[in-house]
C-alpha cells in the first residue's frame, strides 16, 4: 500500500449548496445519456402525435374541439411530467441516503433535479408543440401575451408538464420503491382527469379538490388562449343535422288553425307570401276566417306528419344554424375560459406555485431520509 502523499484536513469547510447543485446536475445529465432517461423524449413525441391527430380538426376551431383538445393535451403533459420523475428518487434512494450521510445537502439534490427536469420538460414541450403544428393543429396567428400564439401555447404546455413533473418528484421522494411509485401513478392520473373540472359534472363538495388539480389550470389556460368563448359551438347543430330525417308528428284541431291564423306574428309572415291568384296568404287567411268555413269543421282534428329537415328548410337552414350555434355558444360560455390576460396569467402562476410547492414538499420529505427503516 502506498504511503499517503497528501494530508487531508477532514475538518474544514466543505462544498456548499450551490457547488453541490453543479455536481448533481452533472450526474443527472450523464444518467440522461448513459441510462434510459433520454427515452422520455421520443415517447413524448409519439404520444403528442397520436393525440394531435385526434384533436387536430377542431382544436382552436370550435368550442368543443378546443375543450377536448385542451383536455387531451393537458393529460399528455401530466403523463409526460409524472413519467419523467416518478422513479428518479426512489430508484436511487439508497444512494441518496449514503450521499446524505457523506455531506450531501438535500436541497442541492432537489434543486439539481428541478433544473434537470426543467430541461426535460422544455424539450418535451418543444417536441409536442412541433408535432402538433406539423400534424396540422390550427394555431391562431396572433399571440395573446407574448405576441406569438405558439409561444403562449408552449408556455402553458411547459408549465403543466413541469408542475406534473414536480408532483412526480414529490411522490418519488417519499415512496420506498419504484413498484410503489408505479402503483400510485394511475391513481394520480385518474384524480387529475376526473377533477379537471372541464369534462365531468362534479358535485359541489368536490370543488376544493378541483382547485388543486394541475389539469384544471392546464385546460383553463389552453382554452382561454384559444379564445374558447368566442368560438362557435357545433354539437347542438351537428345533432340537429343528424336528426333531419326524424319525423315530427303533431295533431292539429281546426280551432288550433283558427288561432294560428289570428296570431299577429304569423299573419305578418303570411303577408309576404303570394298565392297563385295574386293574393297574399294573409288575404287567404282572412277569407277563411270571415267566410265561416272553419266553424263548419270546428272540433275536428288532423294528424300532421313532417320531417325535421322540412321544417328547417321552411325556416331556412342557415338561419337555424346561426340561431342554434349562437344560442349554444352563449349557453356554453364560461368565465373560467375568458380570453383575458388576467385569467391566463392566473393559471400560469398557479401552475408555477404548484411546481414550487411540490419541489418544497419533496425537499422536506427527503430531509427525513435518515429515518428510513432498513
Amino acid at each position, binding site marked *: *500500500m502506498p504511503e*499517503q502523499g*497528501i494530508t487531508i484536513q477532514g475538518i474544514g469547510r466543505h462544498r456548499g449548496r450551490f457547488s453541490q447543485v453543479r*455536481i448533481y446536475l452533472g450526474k443527472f445529465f*450523464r444518467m440522461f445519456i448513459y441510462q434510459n432517461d433520454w427515452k422520455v423524449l421520443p415517447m413524448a413525441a409519439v404520444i403528442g402525435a397520436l393525440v394531435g391527430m385526434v384533436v387536430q380538426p377542431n382544436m382552436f376551431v370550435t368550442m368543443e374541439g378546443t375543450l377536448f383538445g385542451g383536455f387531451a393535451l393537458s393529460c399528455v403533459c401530466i403523463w409526460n411530467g409524472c413519467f419523467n420523475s416518478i422513479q428518479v428518487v426512489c430508484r*436511487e434512494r439508497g444512494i441518496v441516503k449514503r450521499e446524505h*450521510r*457523506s455531506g450531501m445537502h438535500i436541497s442541492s439534490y432537489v434543486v439539481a433535479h428541478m433544473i434537470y427536469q426543467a430541461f426535460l420538460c422544455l424539450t418535451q414541450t418543444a417536441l409536442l408543440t412541433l408535432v402538433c403544428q406539423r400534424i396540422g393543429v390550427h394555431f391562431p396567428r396572433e399571440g395573446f401575451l407574448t405576441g406569438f400564439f405558439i409561444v403562449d401555447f408552449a408556455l402553458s404546455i411547459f408549465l403543466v408538464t413541469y408542475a406534473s413533473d414536480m408532483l412526480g418528484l414529490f411522490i418519488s421522494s417519499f415512496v420506498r420503491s419504484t413498484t410503489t411509485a408505479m402503483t400510485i401513478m394511475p391513481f394520480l392520473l385518474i384524480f387529475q382527469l376526473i377533477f379537471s373540472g372541464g369534462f365531468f359534472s362534479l358535485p359541489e363538495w368536490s370543488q376544493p379538490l378541483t382547485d388543486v388539480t394541475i389539469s384544471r389550470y392546464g385546460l383553463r389556460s389552453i382554452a382561454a388562449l384559444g379564445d374558447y368563448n368566442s368560438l362557435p359551438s357545433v354539437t347542438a347543430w351537428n345533432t340537429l343535422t343528424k336528426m333531419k330525417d326524424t319525423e315530427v308528428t303533431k295533431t292539429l284541431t281546426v280551432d288550433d288553425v283558427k288561432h294560428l291564423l289570428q296570431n299577429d306574428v304569423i299573419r305578418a309572415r303570411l303577408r309576404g307570401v303570394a298565392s297563385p291568384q295574386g293574393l297574399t296568404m294573409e288575404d287567404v287567411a282572412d277569407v277563411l276566417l270571415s267566410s265561416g268555413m272553419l266553424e263548419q269543421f270546428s272540433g275536428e282534428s288532423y294528424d300532421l306528419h313532417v320531417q325535421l329537415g322540412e321544417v328547417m328548410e321552411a325556416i331556412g337552414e342557415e338561419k337555424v344554424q346561426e340561431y342554434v350555434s349562437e344560442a349554444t355558444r352563449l349557453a356554453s360560455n364560461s368565465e373560467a375560459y375568458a380570453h383575458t390576460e388576467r385569467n391566463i396569467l392566473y393559471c400560469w402562476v398557479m401552475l408555477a406555485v404548484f411546481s414550487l410547492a411540490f419541489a418544497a414538499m419533496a425537499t422536506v420529505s427527503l430531509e427525513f431520509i435518515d429515518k428510513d427503516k432498513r
Partner: protein
Amino acid sequence: MVLKVILTLIFGATSVWAIVDASMEIIGLWGIFRKCGIKPALSLVPCLRLYYLGLSVAREPEGWMIFINHVLITLSSLLMLFLPSTSSVYLLISPFVLVFAIIELVYSIRVYIALLELFQARRRWLILAIPVFGIVAIIFGWTKKYQPQWKVTDYQEQAAGLSGATARVMDEGLTVNLEERSVTSFFKKKYLLRDIHMYIKPGSMVLLLGGSGAGKTTFLNAVNGYERANAKVVLNSGDVYADYKKMQYEIGFVPQQDLMRGSDTVLRTLSDAALLRLPIDLPQAQRKKRIMEVMEIFGLEPVAGSLVDKLSGGQRKRLSIAMEFISNPSLFILDEPDSGLDGVMARELFERLRAIADQGKIIIVITHTPDRVIDLFDNVIVLAKDANRTGRLAYYGSIDDARGFFGKQRMEEIVMCINRQEEGGEGRADEFIGKFAEVQHA
C-alpha cells in the same frame, strides 16, 4: 338509535349475523387468551381484543393494524348511522369503509395463519376462519386437542441487568457510551440497543460480531451519528453528535450494498465523491492526486474509465470503499464488505483494510465469515439479543480473550452460542451479557 349505537360500539355492526359472529369471537378469544397467557377478560374489550389476538400469536404489528382498521370501521359506521344514505358525506365514507375492511381482512388472514401455526392446526382451517372466525376461535380456545406451542409469557423472560459501566473518554481513539437506542412503534417504545460502552484505540481493526437482528448495523449507524441514539460518541476529542456537520467527514461508512450510480465511470464516481467529501479549499491538483492515490490503493486504475455497471463484484466493492476512503477518515466503518466475494478476494480486501488500520485509523467491520480473516483483527465486539430482543454488549476485547470468555475457538461458534434457540443457537446471550457486565463493572 341508541341501541344501534351501543351494538355498533360493542360488536362493530348492527346486523344479527354480525352480533352472533362477534359474540362467538368473544367466547372463543376468552379461551385462546387463557391458553396463551393473556388476561381472558381482554376479549370483552371491543377492537382491542383483536390487537391482543395478534399479540398472542406473536404478530403484534398485524394486531395493531387490525385494531386501527377496526376502530376506523366502527367510527365510520357510527357516523353513517346519523347520516341519510343519500348524503354526499355518507357516499364519501362508504368506499373508505370498504378499504378499511379489505385491509383488516388481509391482516386478519396473516394472524389466522399464525394462529394455526401456534396451535399446529392444518391450513384448511383458514377456509372456515375467514368467514366465521368465531367458530374457529371457540374450537381452538375451548377444546383440549388444540394447545399453543408457546405462551406470551414465554418471551417475556427476564433479561440480564444493565452494567452501569462507562467508558473513559480519551484524547485519541473512539469512545462510545451508548445508553439506549430505541424506536416507538404503534405507541410502544422498543429498545434496539442498550448499555454499550467501549473505547477503541487508534490503529485497531475491530470485528463486529452478532447474530441476525442483534443490532450490528443499528450500532454502527449510532456510532457514525447518522441515526442518533441516547449516547455520547467521541472520536479523537470531537463529539460526533454535537459537531456532526464537521465530524461526518472524519467517519467513512461503507454500506452493505454497493450504492453507486451505474451510469458513471469509476474515475467520475471518485471525482464526485472527492468533491463532496474533501474540503473546498484543497487545491485541485491535490484533489486529483488524492483520487489517483486512492485508485492505486484499491487497485482501480485499470478500470478508471469503465462504467460502474460493468465492474465485477470485487471491483464494485473496492470502489464503494474507495469512495469513503477518499476523505482519509479517522474512523472507517464497513458493513459486510466481503458479501458476494470469494475467499481469495475477501482476504485481499481485508489485507487492504489492515494496511489502512496500520496507518493509525480505526476500522470496524461486520462480516458473517470472520474466521477466514480473523488473524487480521485486533479486537472483537460481540452484540447479542437479550431476552427482550434488545441488542446488548456481550463482549468487547481481544480475539484471544474472546475465545477464553466464550469457551469457543471459532468466531462463528461464538455467534451460535449467543443466538437464540429458535434461531438454531445455544440461547446463552443473557448469560454472557451478564458475565461481561460484571467484568466491565469490575
